[in-house]
C-alpha cells in the first residue's frame, strides 16, 4: 500500500510524501483485534531563500488482526506430572487446570480429555468429566 499526497509551496517547491505499509504480520496479544493504528509522516525543509516549510503525509491506518492463542496449565507428562493425586478405588479425584485465552479477541474452546499413552491405569474417556470451576475452589459445587 502506497499512498501519497502532493502539495505546492509558494516557493515553487513540490514535495511528495508517502508511507508504505510493507510488512504486516501477527501482533502479539496485548492489543485487541480491530484496534486501528494510525501513522503520519512529516518533513521540515527550507528553500534556497531560507523560507521554512513543514509538510505532512496522509495518514495510513493499520488494523490489528485477531491473534488466537490458548494455554492450559499446569502442563505435564506421565513421567513428569503437573499434578499428583491419590485415591482409593471408586473415589473421585479433582484436578484444577487454568484455561487462558492468550489471544487478542474473544474465542470459544472445546475441552476434551486426552489420556496419555504412557498411562498404566485402566481409564476410559467416560471416567473423566470436565467441569467449569467458576469460583476456582477446586470443589464440585451444586448448580
Amino acid at each position: 500500500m502506497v499512498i501519497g499526497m502532493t502539495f505546492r509551496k509558494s516557493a515553487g517547491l513540490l514535495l511528495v510524501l508517502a508511507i508504505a505499509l510493507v510488512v504486516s504480520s501477527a501482533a502479539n496479544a496485548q492489543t485487541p483485534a480491530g484496534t486501528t493504528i494510525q501513522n503520519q509522516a512529516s518533513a521540515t525543509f527550507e528553500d534556497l531563500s531560507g523560507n521554512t516549510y513543514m509538510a505532512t503525509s496522509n495518514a495510513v491506518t493499520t488494523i490489528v488482526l485477531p491473534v488466537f492463542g490458548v494455554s492450559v496449565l499446569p502442563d505435564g507428562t506421565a513421567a513428569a506430572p503437573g499434578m499428583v493425586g491419590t485415591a482409593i478405588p471408586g473415589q473421585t479425584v479433582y484436578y484444577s487446570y487454568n484455561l487462558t485465552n492468550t489471544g487478542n479477541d474473544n474465542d470459544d474452546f472445546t475441552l476434551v480429555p486426552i489420556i496419555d499413552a504412557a498411562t498404566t491405569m485402566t481409564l476410559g474417556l467416560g471416567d473423566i468429566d470436565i467441569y467449569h470451576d467458576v469460583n476456582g475452589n477446586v470443589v464440585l459445587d451444586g448448580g
Partner: protein
Amino acid sequence: MVEYTLKYTNSGTAAAVGVDLIGPVPAGTVYIEETATDIPGIKPMYSIDQGRTWHEAPVIVEVARKDGTVEKRKADPEMITHVRWSLAGNLEAGEEIMVSYRVHVK
C-alpha cells in the same frame, strides 16, 4: 510487525535544504531497535519526548536513585516516540529519498 516506508520526492524545480524527515512511532506500537534506515548522510536520530529533543542511538536516560544520585541507562525501546533523519546534503529538484523503520504492535 509493521514496516513504515517514507518516500520523499522533491518534485519542485529548486533544491530543498536542511531537510528533516520525521516518522512517528504510533500509539500502541513499539519501535524495533536498529530497524531505522542508517546510511551515510542519513543518520537516524531518536526522540523520547514527542520530537522535542533528538538523540543518536543508544538514547541515554537519567534515572534518579533514592539516594539522590543519578543513574544513566539506555532508554527502553518503548520510550521512543519518533525517528528523524536529517539529510546532510540538499534534496535536489527531482531527487527522491526513501527511509524506513519497523514497529511491533504491543
